[in-house]
């Protein structure tokens, strides 16, 4: 199971080698999220319409290794944007990937950019 987690390493903007054209902006619900597939990766994308910000992270919850984070609820705590897993409400920062309400491993986050109505996710490979 740990091998699944190893598919997902955080990518910072300066490490991006590929900007993957993931979907249309309107495919992702406002103030909510959805999942896209890139090669063998599942990536959750979130549209913070209220603050005009987009975030992306692995769809895999490191707690029980299920591909579900995109179906969770987004929000913030003390200004940190976060995603709550729909399984057991484990929450993760969408900025650093850190588990905010426990000691789980961090999730991988990915850079997002928008162009001409499309959403692009940055990958380092």
């Amino acid at each position, binding site marked *: 199971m740990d091998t699944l987690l190893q598919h997902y*390493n*955080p990518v910072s903007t300066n490490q991006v080698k590929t900007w993957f054209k*993931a979907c249309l902006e309107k*495919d992702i619900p406002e103030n*909510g999220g959805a999942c896209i597939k890139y090669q063998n990766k599942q990536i959750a994308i979130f549209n913070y319409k209220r603050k005009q910000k987009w975030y992306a992270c692995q769809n895999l919850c490191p707690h029980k290794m299920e591909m579900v984070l995109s179906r969770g609820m987004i*929000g*913030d705590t003390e200004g940190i944007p976060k995603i709550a897993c729909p*399984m057991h409400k484990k929450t993760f920062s969408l900025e650093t990937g850190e588990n905010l309400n426990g000691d789980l491993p*961090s999730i991988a986050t990915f850079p997002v950019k928008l162009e001409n109505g499309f959403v692009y996710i940055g990958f380092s490979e």
Partner: protein
Amino acid sequence: MKTVIVVGNGMVGYKFCEKFIATPSNNAYKLIVFGDEPRPAYDRVHLSEYFENQDAKALELAPATWYKKNGIELITGQRVTDIKKEKREIHTDAGDSHSYDYLVLATGSVPFVPPISGVEKEGVFVYRTIEDLEEMMAYASQIKAIKPNGRAAILGGGLLGLEAGKAVLDMGLEPHVVEFAPKLMPRQLDSRSSNVLQLKLESMGIQVHLSKAANQILGDKVIEGMEFGEDDRLDVDMLIISAGIRPRDELGRTCGLEMGTRGGIVVNNKMQTSAEDIFAIGEVALYNQMIYGLVAPGYEMADVAVNQILGNREVVMPDDIDMSTKLKLMGVDVASFGTPYMPADRGLSIIFENKTKHLYKRINVSHDRKTLLGGILVGDASDYNMLHQMYLNGMALPENAEELIVGARGEGGSAFGSAMDLPDTAQICSCESITKGNICSSLLDGKSESLKDVIQCTKATTGCGGCKPMVTELVNETLKSMGKEVKDVICEHFEYTRQELYGIVKVKGISTYNEALDKCGKGHGCEVCKPALASIFATIYNDTANKEDVIQDSNDRFLANIQRNGSYSVVPRIPGGEITPDKLIVLGDVAKEYGLYTKITGGQRIDLFGAELNDLPAIWKKLIDAGFESGHAYGKALRTVKSCVGSTWCRYGMDESVSFAIELEDRYKGIRSPHKLKGGVSGCIRECAEARGKDFGVIAVEGGWNLYVCGNGGATPKHAQLLAEQIDNETVIKYLDRFLMYYIRTAAPLMRTAAWLEKLEGGIEQLKKVVVEDSLNIAQELEMDMQSLVDKYECEWKQAVENEEIGKRFKHFVNTDDRDDNLVFVPMREQKMPEPWTN
């Protein structure tokens, strides 16, 4: 004005500045700080995090502007090269000189590089600064480019070495930890706990080599391997040395301060060196013949030096320094305190080991079994804080000391008391030296009113954060003892109770979540307030969960219960448990077509499990075409009204319980409430429908129905209580309308009727007054509100299958029609189940 010069801007040097400016008498001094790294002080304890985010700012203890704002002159990138003791002057490598009244040496340490031949080869690194990390990362990515399965060795299996192991794992190389001693973390662990930790690390892919002394680094110019002895070598592409530290004491040596034989500047308990106006703190200081490589003693030294310089001469360093540590190494808890391992003549040990779970706990107890001398925890350090406090404060041990690590037998669980039982002098936050007294008096003196204030005021929890649970408990208990109500607000985004929020939404006519945030909330919401507001909107407007799906709890958003592997269950409504053979066949056909696990539930209906998100609309289309509706099994809403067959068939039946159950289920279906609602109707007092175990229950008796409310099964079973006796069908519905609506309006989120009644002042008698006697004069309004909800009912699954836009929600991927290939089912008794969880 006098001048204090601090040489070194590491964690301890920074702490000196922080403590200095916090002392009122600092105005008479000018503070100048030299740091030879290019950036201001950062958190070296969490250095390995830099690999994850490469965010140097996140590690910064304070930005450069903080120094300026506090009148501190910070000079980075410049090294102090000489001290002229007699002239009270320092010189720097930029050719400048400054005079001082007091000099504080906080130069820290450098990594110890053992004299192994070949250690100068390319690919050998030390692990200390952000710059070290950057070089390592650059080198590692070069290796990975040519050798995807590259290996890196870490020399040293102590705290820092294991941290470096994690860094190597993050860099994508295969880590090998090489330790000279026969165990890992030799200062903190005994050999059994080291074995347990080693097993855990190896399960994560980190190889461990113990009792190995490297005698040569192999390779031409570039490292290719390490040689330990004859025919004993390890091929590696990179080596990281973290084999301990050596104090950076050159300045002390050249200016003639008293030095330790093996390095370190000798200090007394005032942190004074052999020159009375020169102080040394942190890893450069030799105190009690020891260099303390932990941050907590370093911080304490900084505090002592500040006090000595500013004239509080009575503040000195204690003789015994607590070397207890708790940390998380790659997600594994490791802690040791007091005397972690000890000779048998000093005491006795109690040891619990479970290698299957990578768990080890040891406590050492004095011969008279009264005092805790120390211990080790690996795999689970949740009891560390309490054990550490018992040790520090010499608190009496419980009669069965083993309960401290294996838990008390029988009821009650914990062998520990409350944190409030600790003496005021108990040090709760050892990073910041904050005692229980500091925390409690901050509240009692009125300086703080909340956990947040206490943290701001005392800085407790801001170091490693390990003491947070204890600080939280102390704050809550102290507030309670002061008679302060800890208000039951929804969350940080809405400072109201659910009932208050219901009132605001209704009065202001708020109908969307964003509007609610704008008008009476703040921030961007969370998983607590979103469903709470969704429930409030549903109560006021009875729109279905499709209207604003992103604020619904995940189950409501997809109109199905998420199951263990991320698949969903499908539960159509079968009112009263009555179903025709034709409908049964449809359920069977659909289950067969989609390969669903099928089970009859406790609520007299049929659950179909294991449906994939993509298939939900098609499954429901078939069910709806056959006349089924959503069963709302996923929602905080009415589930079922269970019934027995009643007088229709039963020879004891007093009334038609099935008919009445169907009528009630159809009336209240689809209504959202603070928690799930269940009902039951029994045809006689034999109570086959278990109506008194439900939120509302009706039992047929001579001359009508008895109506019971506020029961539940679940974790704390409660029998429902009698609300009215011998009433007719119409009156049952009238009272139920009032009761349910009153509950829905006033309960807290996720509070079931039984808990709600317990909190209702006056209890069931008060409820009777409101519902039956209409003492609040709101009965008519409650009935009207309920009727309007009943009138607006719509099946949300019908909406979803008929509306293409809503249908799009049920795709696992938005950019492809592929299915989730992570879904794994295994066979079970002719059906299927999700693959069991391994963690």
